[in-house]
Every structure is written in structure tokens, then in C-alpha cells.
């Protein structure tokens, strides 16, 4: 029996749609309006915070690398690891829809790497990263690269718990890309303009691109480099080494 208006089951009198304080009564079903006011991705954010806390506690400097497919993320990563591994412990989580080609390429450098296949999914989420870490034990005071699925849309919305979100933009893609995908460049902390050795052959205006980036996110740390020729790699490696040292020092203070 309805505790509000007293009607019981099987009584088909016409009282559809009448309203009481706090609930509405349509037919013989109660309709309760419940205010939630919560982010749809709240669950992802909880996992992301747990990951972040773990990284900070262990002094792991974690980076989330995002870009379009074909920007040269994996090539940059291989060159970066080769330069970093002499001084620092490095590990990699590779996100791709299919295959373990990228993780295999990374393993050839001698650092541990785990491939996460997202299948139909177009991005990594914080929960996938948490699971990936089960197969990739985190080393204290190390660098963790999380190479996201090649996509400039979805990964912008999913915090993985990283310290830096690095958007890689190759000069073959066009200098107006930041304007086309503003959400990603607004969410990023760092931008790498890659393949600069190809600048003489493409219509890419670096100054204009940096201007667009500044209008969306003036706090971006911007690097220009070529993983193939090595030009600009020094500043990038220096930043990574500095940030990793700082993460390790911070963890030591918290211990």
C-alpha cells in the first residue's frame, strides 16, 4: 500500500501524476527525484588520486603522454629512455587498442614495460593504470612513462594520477591543432613540438603554434625537439631529470 495516499495494489483508479511533497506518484509507482550533483567521472578521479598518492609516496615521477596517432610518441620515448636510464630507473605503461608492438619496442631498450590493450576503448583510465602496476612493480625514485592511446580527445578527460600530462604535437600535423583540440592543450602541463627536423618541408609556423598554445594555456612548458636528429633533446632530458629528482626529494620529506 502506498504510504502517502493510501492506494493499494490492484486499485486502478485514476490518480496518475499527482504530487506530494518530496515525491511524485504516477500510476502505482513512486517517482522520487534525487539530487546527486556529482561529476560523472568521479570514480575515475578516486582511482587517479590513489595512484597519485602512491607515486608521490614512492617518489615516482609519472608522466601521461598524449598525442594524435603518428606523432612519434614511441620513438621519442625510446630515445628519452636511452638517455635517462644511465641515471634513473625507468618503467613504461603502454596503452594501445591492439598489439604489444610498442611495449616490445620499449623492452628492447632494457627497461620494464607493460602493454595495456584498451580494445574498443580509446583512452587509458586510472583504474587500468592501477591494474597495470600489478605487473610492473614500481621502483622508488624512478620515472614512469604512461603512453596513452593515440587520441587528442578522450584522454583529456581522464586523470591517471600523473604529475605531468605531456601533449606531443608533431610539425607534420599543422600549427592550428591546439585550436582544434583545445581541451587537451588546456588539460596538459607540457607540450612537446616534435619532428622539428622536418620543418623545412612542411607548412608549420612554430611561432603561430606557440601563440595558439598560449591563448589556451599560458602556463604550458613548451619543448621543441627532434628525436631523430637529437636537436632539442637536451632541454627535455634536463627537465625530466630535474623533476624526477624533485619527486624523489619530496617523497623523502614525507617519509
Amino acid at each position, binding site marked *: 500500500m502506498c504510504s502517502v495516499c493510501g492506494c493499494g495494489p490492484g486499485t486502478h483508479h485514476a490518480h496518475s501524476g499527482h504530487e506530494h511533497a518530496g515525491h511524485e506518484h504516477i500510476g502505482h509507482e513512486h517517482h522520487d527525484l534525487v539530487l546527486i550533483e556529482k561529476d*560523472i567521472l568521479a570514480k575515475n578521479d578516486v582511482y587517479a588520486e590513489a595512484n597519485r598518492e602512491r607515486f608521490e609516496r614512492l617518489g615516482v615521477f609519472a608522466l601521461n603522454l598524449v598525442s594524435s596517432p603518428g606523432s612519434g610518441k614511441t620513438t621519442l620515448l625510446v630515445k628519452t629512455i636511452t638517455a635517462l636510464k644511465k641515471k634513473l630507473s625507468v618503467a613504461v605503461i603502454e596503452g594501445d587498442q591492439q598489439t604489444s608492438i610498442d611495449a616490445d619496442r620499449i623492452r628492447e631498450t632494457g627497461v620494464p614495460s607493460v602493454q595495456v590493450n584498451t580494445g574498443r576503448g580509446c583512452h587509458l583510465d586510472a583504474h587500468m593504470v592501477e591494474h597495470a602496476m600489478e605487473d610492473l612493480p614500481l621502483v622508488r625514485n624512478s620515472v614512469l612513462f604512461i603512453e596513452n592511446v593515440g587520441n587528442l580527445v578522450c584522454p583529456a578527460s581522464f586523470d591517471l594520477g600523473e604529475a605531468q600530462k605531456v601533449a606531443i604535437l608533431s610539425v607534420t600535423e599543422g600549427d592550428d591543432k591546439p585550436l582544434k583540440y583545445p581541451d587537451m592543450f588546456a588539460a596538459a602541463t607540457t607540450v612537446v613540438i616534435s619532428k622539428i627536423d622536418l620543418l623545412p618541408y612542411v607548412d608549420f609556423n612554430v611561432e603561430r603554434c606557440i601563440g595558439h598554445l598560449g591563448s589556451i594555456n599560458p602556463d604550458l612548458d613548451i619543448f621543441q625537439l627532434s628525436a631523430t636528429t637529437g636537436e632539442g633533446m637536451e632541454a627535455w632530458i634536463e627537465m625530466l631529470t630535474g623533476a624526477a629528482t624533485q619527486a624523489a626529494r619530496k617523497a623523502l620529506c614525507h617519509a
Partner: protein
Amino acid sequence: MHELTIASALVEQVCDHARDRGASRVGSIRIRMGALSGIAKALHFCFPSAAKGTLCDGAVLYIDEVPLTVMCVRCDAIKTPSGHYNFRCPDCGHPTPKVITGREMQLASIELVGADAPPAGAHASAGATDNSLSSQGI
């Protein structure tokens, strides 16, 4: 595919609330999507498949689109840019990277349907659980 993940996250969260309150199904869902999210239409399209077989099956999805507004530090005022790809003040041309509204992806409210169930908050099983928890606390 992005929108399917968002739809699945939405369905999961709504189902958790519906189960907690002992509802038999969800009548409608109201969400707020910022203009920058750009997936309102796609979300409408894939919501039914994400909801299939859950308490959200058959629920009506209402999407309130939140317009893009940005802060212009030069004018010291909140402005509406002339387009989504134009992060400059429409009046003075100054860059306006600070987004005030337009990035939202929020679950605002849900309408729960419980066949001949008492109103939310007074539900028998939920009430019993609450009481037993508080008595254990004492």
C-alpha cells in the same frame, strides 16, 4: 568510443544510487554537459546501449548543455567567446585561457521509480540498515 565510456560511467553511478535507495528502476536522468565536452548528441545516441539490462534501461536522459564562458583578466569580467575555438575576449581580444563554465560533465539528478515503495529515505531495507549501523556504533 569516448561517449560510450562516459555513458557507462554515468549508468554505473546512477545504478549505484538506485540500488542504495532500493529503486526498481530509473525513470529519468538529468546531466549537465559543458559545450567543450562536445559529446551531448553522441551521448544521447549511445546511452540506451550502455543502459541495456541495467536499472537505467528505458530511462529518459535529459542533457542540459552549459555554454562556454571564460574570464577576461583585462576586462575583469566573465565573457562568452565567439566560438569554441576562439580563446580570446570578444571585446578586447586578450587571451582568455581560464574557462569558467563549459567543461562540466556532471550528474545533476535522477528520478527513481520504486513499485509501491515508500518515498526515498523512509525505505524499509535502507532504514533497517541505517538503524543497525547506528546501533552498532553505540
